[in-house]
Each structure stands twice: as C-alpha cells, then as structure tokens.
C-alpha cells in the first residue's frame, strides 16, 4: 500500500533512519560476523535458504493480527501447539510423506480455530494489551497442551506405537521422530543452483501465502481489519463488527501458524514434544522486527528481510563467538539475548514515536503563534492589556 506518498514532500532522513535503525544494526552485526565465522559463501547461502523455507510461513502468519491492530501476537504459539498435536497423531497413524503433512494440516485446522476463537475472545477483553495477554496465555495453553500430551495421549486418546509413547504406557516421548516426513516437502521439486539446494515447492507455498495476503488486503474483510486496527471506535460507528473482526484475524493467524509449524517441523525432521513451540513465537516476532516492522505496521518485505538478517546472525554468531571466545555456547546465549533485546527495542521505539507525534502537535501550535506574531496581527485579541 503506498499510502505514504502524500505524507511528506521533503524527504525526512532522520525519521527514515529511525525507522530502519534495527535492520541497519543487524546488517552491521552480520557484516562483522560473517568474515570472522569463516563460513564459505556457499554454505552460508545454503543455510539461509533452508531457514527461509523453514520459517517464512510462520512469520507471515503474524501479519494479519498486526493489520487488525492487535500488535505482535503470541497467539501464534497456540497454532504451533495445534500443529504438534496433529503431527503426533498422524505419525502414530503411520501416514507419511506429503499425504501425512496434508492430513496433519487438516487435523490441526479445527484445533487452531478453536484455540484462535478462545484467544480472540480473551484479547477482546484486553484491548490495547494484546501482546502481553497473548504471551501469558500461551503459557496457560502450554499447560493444557502438556496435560493432553503427557497424560491424555495413550490413556484416553489412543496412541498405538511404542516408539512415540513413554515406557510407562501413556504420555508422549520427549522427541517424536518425523522421519517419514522429513524434508519431503522441501525435496519434492527441489533444484540445485551452484551447489545451493532450493526447496522450490516450499517456496511456491510461501509465495501463494504472500499472494493470499496481498489479495486479502483488498477484500472487504481486509479493509475492515485495517479500519479496526486504526480506530476501533470509528469502525464501530461505521457499523463494522469490531469484536468479530478481531476474532477472525486471530483465528486466521493461528490457523496459518499451525500450517507454518508443520512446514517448520517437516524441515527439522522431529518434534521436540515439550519445547518446540515454547520459543517459536518469540523468534518469529524478533525476526519480523529485525526486518523493520513495528508494533502497528508490518509488510511482507519485512518478513523476508527479517528472516534473512535474523537467521544470518543465528548462523554466523555462534561460530564467530566460538572463534573469539573459544566457547560455542556464546552463540546460543547471543540469539536469545538478541531476540529479547530486539523486541524490547521495538516496543520502546513504538512508544517514543507516539510521544514524538504528540509533542509535534504542540510544536505546530507554537510555530503558528510565532508566525502570527511576525505578521503582526491579532493585537486586538491579546488580553491582559484590555483590563
């Protein structure tokens, strides 16, 4: 959307720099770390392409709630859990390959919708505090997820295969292998260009989602979401059902996150049953912010730039860290640290920008007053001397 075109006639470099400060910072970090890490260009590109295929879909699922003004939404974690439950069931049913993935997606969708509606209803009660509410709620739903996976699966929900079940007869093992699905999607139609494996089919699916999002922005529902996102009261006065629109946006996000998680896990080749989802929300949000998005504005471009920069840092930082300090754990530490730092920075910038806008209104008043004085008019209106 090129709504920007009329905003300012002169280019305001200061504000552009401020907007792009996070991506620029990451470009610098990457530029410093890449040579130190000693990775070959080929290997680096290979890794980046793999991670783009793995993560992009998940991150794209964040765009719709941002459009609806619900900010950076940890509700996507709920979709990720739905996907894990679906994948555990499908692998117990021994359905492998692409059909297994499709079936898992089909199973995950109703669970995602249910969780999405639940999440949306709660977020409607906590307007303006969506981010922290959804974050805490993801912990709460994690508890329900653990109840299902640890106690109900195998006892109430039938699980046949001992390779998945814990030895005690119920509950799921720490790791569920997805060997039958491992990179099946990535390898189908994959091509190699100069030694770099490109998972064409995965990219096609991601591309379709991008097209869907572009198209969706032009639908009535998309327009309503943008309206609700910018001013709920005005939207309500115009007759838009604000609550329902917000719930739909969260449901779409959880459903897409579920599918994204299936793509993510087929690439990984196994499910870390109790931890795969725990940090996925944070990493996705951090990547999106690294790409230059803010709490109230994010584009598809932000997603891809974010994936590339954030994951380049992931790849090179541990090696660079190991090279400098001799300890490879520094990289793992670094990525968690940086994720939180980026999110914090984005939130601070959002607030300061809001404050800057407010004081700009005041400055305008002062300027108008000065101009008026120079013009020498308004003498009759000045009080004080009349009394």
């Amino acid at each position: 959307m090129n709504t920007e075109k009329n905003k300012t006639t002169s280019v305001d470099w200061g504000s552009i720099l401020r907007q792009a400060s996070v991506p620029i910072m990451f470009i610098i970090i990457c530029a410093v770390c890449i040579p130190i890490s000693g990775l070959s260009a080929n290997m680096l590109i290979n890794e980046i392409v793999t991670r783009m295929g793995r993560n992009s879909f998940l991150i794209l699922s964040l765009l719709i709630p941002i459009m609806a003004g619900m900010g950076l939404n940890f509700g996507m974690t709920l979709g990720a859990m739905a996907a894990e439950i679906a994948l555990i069931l499908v692998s117990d049913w021994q359905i492998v390959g692409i059909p297994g993935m499709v079936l898992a997606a089909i199973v995950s969708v109703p669970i995602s919708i249910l969780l999405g509606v639940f999440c949306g209803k709660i977020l409607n009660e906590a307007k303006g505090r969506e981010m922290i509410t959804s974050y805490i709620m993801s912990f709460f739903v994690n508890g329900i997820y653990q109840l299902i996976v640890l106690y109900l699966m195998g006892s109430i929900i039938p699980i046949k295969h001992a390779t998945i079940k814990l030895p005690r007869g119920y509950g799921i093992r720490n790791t569920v292998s997805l060997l039958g699905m491992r990179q099946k999607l990535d390898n189908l139609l994959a091509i190699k260009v100069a030694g770099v494996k490109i998972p064409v089919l995965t990219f096609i699916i991601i591309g379709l989602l991008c097209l869907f999002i572009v198209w969706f922005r032009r639908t009535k529902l998309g327009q309503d979401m943008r309206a609700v996102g910018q001013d709920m009261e005005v939207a309500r006065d115009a007759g838009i059902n604000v609550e329902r629109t917000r719930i739909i946006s969260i449901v779409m996000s959880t459903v897409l996150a579920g599918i994204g998680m299936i793509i993510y896990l087929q690439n990984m080749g196994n499910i870390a049953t109790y931890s795969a989802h725990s940090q996925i929300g944070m990493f996705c949000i951090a990547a999106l912010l690294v790409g230059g998005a803010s709490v109230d504005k994010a584009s598809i471009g932000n997603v891809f730039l974010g994936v590339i920069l954030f994951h380049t840092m992931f790849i090179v930082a541990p090696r660079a860290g190991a090279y400098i300090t001799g300890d490879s754990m520094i990289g793992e530490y670094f990525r968690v640290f940086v994720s939180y730092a980026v999110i914090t920075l984005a939130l601070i910038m959002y607030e300061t920008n809001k404050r800057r806008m407010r004081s700009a209104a005041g400055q305008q008043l002062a300027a108008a007053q000065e101009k008026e004085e120079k013009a020498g008019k308004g003498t009759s209106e000045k009080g004080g001397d009349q009394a």
Partner: protein
Amino acid sequence: MSEQKAPLLQMRNIKKDFFGNQVLTDINLELGAGQVLGLVGENGAGKSTLMKILFGAADIAATGGYGGDILLDGEKVSFSSPFDAIAAGIGMVHQEFSLIPGFEAEENIVLNREPKKSNLLSEIFGDRLDTLDRKAMDETAVKAIEKMGVNIDRHMVISSMPVGHKQFTEIARELSKDQLRLLILDEPTAVLTEREAEALLDSIRGMSARGISVIFITHRLQEILSVCDTVAVMRDGVLVEKVPAKQTSVQEITRWMVGRSVDDSGKGARGAAEPANENAKTVLKIEKLWVDMPGETVRNVSLEVKEGEILGIGGLAGQGKLGIPNGIMGLYEAGGRVEFEGTEIPLNSPRKCLDSAFAFVSEDRRGVGLLLDESLEWNVAFPAMQIQNKFLKNYLGGLIKWRDDNAIREVTEKYIDELKIKCTGSKQNARELSGGNQQKICLAKAFALEPRVLFVSEPTRGIDVGAKALVLDALKKFNRENGVTVVMVSSELEELRSTCDRIAIVSGGRISGILPASSSVEDFGTLMLNNVI
C-alpha cells in the same frame, strides 16, 4: 415546496431527563424538505441532547429514553440506534471526527459501505471476502464530493489532511449515502478557516437546493443568518424562540441565548460590591501561552493576575478555557512563559508548579482529583504530605519519616466541619461520597497545601444547587481570609459573575476580553461569540 404534505421532520413535545434532572422540556420543531434550520444556544442548553435523541444515540436509551414523538414524513419513528436513523435518511456530522486516520478520504467516505465484487472464495466463505471494487469506490467518492461542492483530494490520507478537509470528508461521507434526507451538522465550522467556512455555507445552500434538509448547529451567529431559513434558540432545555432568519439579528439572538432579563445584570456580582484593588501588584504573569490540550487548545494567551483577586475565566466549551490551568500546571504540553512574583515557572512540570505554591482543583474530579478508594484523610493530606513534607514526624534527623496520623485526622476533620462535608467520618472512602462532597474534598486537598495561587477548574460541574453555593462560598472565604489568589474556570457565567472580581472570556483559544464582573451579561455574551472557532 409543497405545503400540503407533512413536513419532513416534526418533533413534538420532546422531553428528556437524566435521573430526574430535566434537560429538555417540551421541544416542538418542524422542518420541511430542503429547509435549513439554525440551532443555537449556550453550552448545556440541550442542543446536543436533542440531536442525540433525533439520531438515536445509545446513551439516550440507556438513560431511560425520552418523552414526546418524532415524526418523519408524518409517520412516528423511534430509533433504537444510530443505524436505524441512518437507514431512515438522517445523517450526522459530529464535532469529533469519526475518520480512520490511515485511510484515504475516499476509503473513509465509503467506509463499511464499500462497493464489492464477489469471487470464488467469497462464494464459499461469505461476502466479507468479496474484493473491494476500487473503481466503483472512486465513482461514489467523486459523486459525493461533487454534491458537496467543495473540492478535496479524495486520495489524500486523513492523517496528513488539514483539519478543515477532514471535516469536509465527513460531510462527503454523509452525502454519499443515497437515502440521506436530513443532515445534522454539529458545529462544523468550528475547525474551518474563514474561506473554508464560506465554502461550507455554499455547500449547505447547495444541499438545500437538492432537497436535503439541514440542521446547522453553530456559535457563529453570522453564519446562521446567512444560510438558514429558520433560527431556533434554546436555553436551559427550552426552545425560547423560533423565528425566520430574515427577521432577526445577531444582537437579538445573543440576547435570547444568554437570556435572563437584562436588568438583573450586576446584581450579586461581587465586583460591584467590593471593587478589586486597582493598585494590587501582579502576582502571576502569563505570556504567549499555548497549550495542546485536545479539544481545549489555547493559543497565544497573555494574562495578568493580581494579588488577592479572584479571576474568572469563562467561555463556551471547547474554546480553550480549560486548557489554561491544565497547561500552566503541566498536565498538558504547553509553551510560553509563566512568571510568579517575577520568577519564571517552568512549564510541563507539575511538580515545579506545586513547589512554587500553586494548587489546582481539576475539572476531572474522579480521574485526576481524587484517590477514590482511599479514605478522606488520605485524600486531604496526601499532596501536602508528598510535596511539602507536612503531616510527617521526623526520626533520626529526618532519615525516617513517619506519618503523623493524628495531625492528618485533625486537619481532615477541620475541613469536614468547615466545608460541611457529608460523610460518616474521616475514614470513609472518597468513592462513597456524592459528587458535591467529592468536590469539597478536592477543595480541602488544595486548601491543605496552603497555596499562594489556586486554580479551580469547573468547581460546580455536576453538583446540586445547595452544594454549589457552599463550594463557591468556601472559595470566596479562602480567598478573602487567607489572601490567596484564585483563578477560577467555569462554563457558568452567572457563577463567575457572583464569585469573581474580573472575568476573562476565552474564545477560539484566545482571550477575547477581560471585564469586571459587574458588566452586563450581553457584553460577556458578545465576547464569548467574538472569534469563536
């Protein structure tokens, strides 16, 4: 106009009370198709309430509905929500903009009425997945803007528009509704420049020629005379006059508006009885003050307050009178220069103001004024304790400060007694008191600070007559006995005239004049309407 059929709008004996407080009494109005009615009256005269009733606003039904009948084309209607009113062909342009800031004018004009095209997905998932028909949106917007007769850039984003264009966007939105027959404009020219206002008046004439009736609410009486067929004047919930615009004048309307027979002017005005000391020195000097308080913008105000006086600040709502104390006390972004006894007081810093012995009783009693869930003792003593270290016992040479509960109780009880605050005791929670008594607590809190200058904002808003007199008397007594300079902001002119020495009238964010309290009501009325924005 064909007179044989029923007029477009008839309002018969409209009555409305808010919890026993009568705000509208037997309003009768008629409006033919294509006619323009000018509705004027002071704030609180009942204009807005009347329009809310006509537009089916939710808070009317929530407060017990209204009495009387509204007829459209001779048929009785009853709107349960604004959407019903819109469907019946009534449009309203509110004082506050109802626009999506990041949307183009065009998108706002067709908001939630966008022309759509269906597609495969929308067949399956419902029509909200229809794509927007940008071309048809364009056409609708162009047509509406043409109808309005004022050209605005339909592709401009609202947030980057000058405020007048936002107003026009709203009007275009109403005009784009095909069923529109009656348009209510609530102070539309308030935000317009002179030329824009002129364009709007032309536009209203155009609407009228097309057969759309207009109810035009404004404080700019000249506009009413130039564009309206009929003028209706409201005062205190009663329709006092309804005359053809051609047969009246600005002076006459002003007199009807402020009402109260002219000969009682000066009676009870404090200034007449005790003329202010002309030689008193200036204690507070305000120069070139601007305040960015939403809805109460202050522009270039210079004002001098004399020691020991009560200075009133009056004016219509939204003209900026509330912005002056709020800006000086640092509650809203402000600029300019404020001097207290020759030393400059930094703006945007509430603490510095309080330290220099200013105190402020806010108009936002429940929000800013009180700790609702704390006891009266706490409410009275808290600021003094916090700012001036009063009511504290020092131990270990001031290292440990202990609250002096006895002193707090004493002072609270003293004020409860003095101000006749009705409560069960000094330990009662502030929330449980009535509005008037809460206001007295706010005053007690400010008195406990023992300020040199006291700002009081709307001290009698929302409290009953008896409490009003008590509050005003307490203020006067505090002023006289302690020699405290008081700056009092109020929308009630009578109250200002009976309390203050001098009254400054704010209009359009500026001081339009300062008069002694004994001046006539008409003089004040003229000042109020002087450069209304």
